[in-house]
């Protein structure tokens, strides 16, 4: 069922596809994080925006991924840009929701205490609110990275997709080996990202038991 010689012959292209996959996930994650960060700052400046943003990102998240990529395609074509924009949008939605929810669930009496001790708005955000919301923030990044690993394979349909291309190859040639290889590597990659953020959480957050 599995053609081992094919794997041995094609280890280099497979490796390159894996690297491409990691690159797409990382790019999507980073730009999503950046935009989410800017939006969180926006809600600090105008707190009324927080609730509409949470709702909006919730609604956008229900748009099917394939539809989203097809919607972006007229503007940026079958390029890596299309893929990264779509991935970033998904990343943005998950990260934003988790961060805003984390910030909103910070205990009010602790923020009040910070105010009473003489923290300025910015000092309170950087010194108290953000660290307290860090577990939620990291949980968001963890979910996002795992979601993106899966989502990248979908972008194979617009000519990108890292390991997703192996699916297409396998499907077109009715050849199972590339499909199985792609599946196993994707799952392993998702596991690695998950473990990365899990360790980051353990390393950074020592105060919750």
């Amino acid at each position: 069922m599995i053609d081992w010689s094919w794997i041995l012959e094609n280890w280099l292209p497979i490796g390159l596809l894996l690297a491409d996959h990691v690159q797409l996930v990382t790019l999507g994650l980073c730009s999503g994080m950046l935009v989410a960060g800017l939006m969180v700052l926006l809600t600090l400046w105008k707190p009324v925006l927080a609730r509409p943003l949470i709702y909006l990102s919730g609604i956008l998240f229900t748009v099917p991924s394939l539809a989203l990529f097809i919607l972006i395609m007229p503007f940026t074509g079958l390029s890596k840009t299309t893929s990264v924009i779509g991935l970033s949008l998904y990343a943005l939605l998950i990260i934003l929701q988790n961060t805003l929810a984390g910030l909103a669930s910070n205990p009010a009496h602790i923020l009040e205490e910070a105010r009473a001790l003489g923290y300025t708005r910015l000092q309170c955000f950087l010194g108290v609110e953000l660290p307290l919301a860090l577990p939620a923030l990291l949980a968001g990044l963890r979910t996002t990275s795992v979601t993106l690993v899966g989502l990248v394979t979908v972008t194979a349909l617009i000519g990108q997709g890292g390991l997703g291309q192996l699916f297409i190859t396998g499907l077109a040639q009715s050849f199972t080996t590339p499909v199985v290889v792609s599946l196993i590597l994707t799952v392993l990659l998702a596991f690695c990202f998950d473990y990365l953020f899990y360790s980051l959480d353990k390393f950074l957050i020592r105060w919750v038991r």
Partner: protein
Amino acid sequence: MIRFESVMKTHRGSARLAVSGLTLHIPKGEICVFVGPSGCGKTTILRMINRLDSQDSGRIRVDGVATDELDVVTLRRGIGFMMQSSALFPHQTVAQNIGAVPRLLGWGRDKIAQRVSELISLVGLQPEFLDRYPNQLSGGQQSRVALARALASDPPVVLMDEPFAALDPVIRERLQDELVALQRRLHKTIILVTHDMEEAIKIGDRIAIFEGEGKLVQFDTPHNILARPASEFVRNFIGKDPLLKQLSLMRISDLPVDEIDCEFDLLLDEKRIPSKWLSDSTVPAPELVTVSSEQSLHHALMNMLSVQNGVVVRVGENGRYEGCLSLGSLYKALNERRPGVAQS
């Protein structure tokens, strides 16, 4: 030190006054306790001092300066604050929590570290607690850390909003005692809010009793409030047994040492520490019960009731004999405090 000048406040969206024209002067270096039923506005009044709440009209002056003329952050950094359930920052160690205000004030690292280690022993905790996180501490320990944090920049004024309400009774009483002992050394102006009259009597140099709508009904020393309640409301609020409460206010050392005729002789050792009552062969000697002169008359009374002859032996700090106490000594003490009899 702190002056309220016809301060008024209505909560937003409420027709009722929260504070109706409060004028009050809190003297420097005393513990002033705000007490009253819940919803009487005492917490709002406290929170107006560091502008966590704002007044609609009137002035509040801290050390002569009107609070609304100062920058709000400067004002707050200059006033210690401790709230109910000790709102420590859970993501910071004990040391970081205590050093919060000095950090905001831009103190150097060494100066902060030195101050933090001073404070941790001041509030009776071991230095090894400094690296722990708040969720690794008991409720009582958390309260101690919160107190240290409130005192960190050595502010002249400290505000405490029901600081001990969430603690179990034994720990609460111990912390109350320690706060009083600490205050004897620090001489801060402390304003403490509580709904517990016992607590107010125990720690207050002065008590402000509020009725609804932030109306001040009596502002006086605990003794005077117990002896001369200003209204039926205050009488009810004080509750039962005002005499017992007065006894818990007075220390044994407040009484003159007087000799009491006792049917037994007391044996002292060479350091003048009482060792036992001597029996005169026919009647067995009662159990020897000593009370330290630092303790309250209430404590002395409870001990008198527990021995057969109703006499307890009073000892000084080092355990040495000072005298004896009986019920008669307590009657005398209370009579001297009673209004109208005091002058006779």
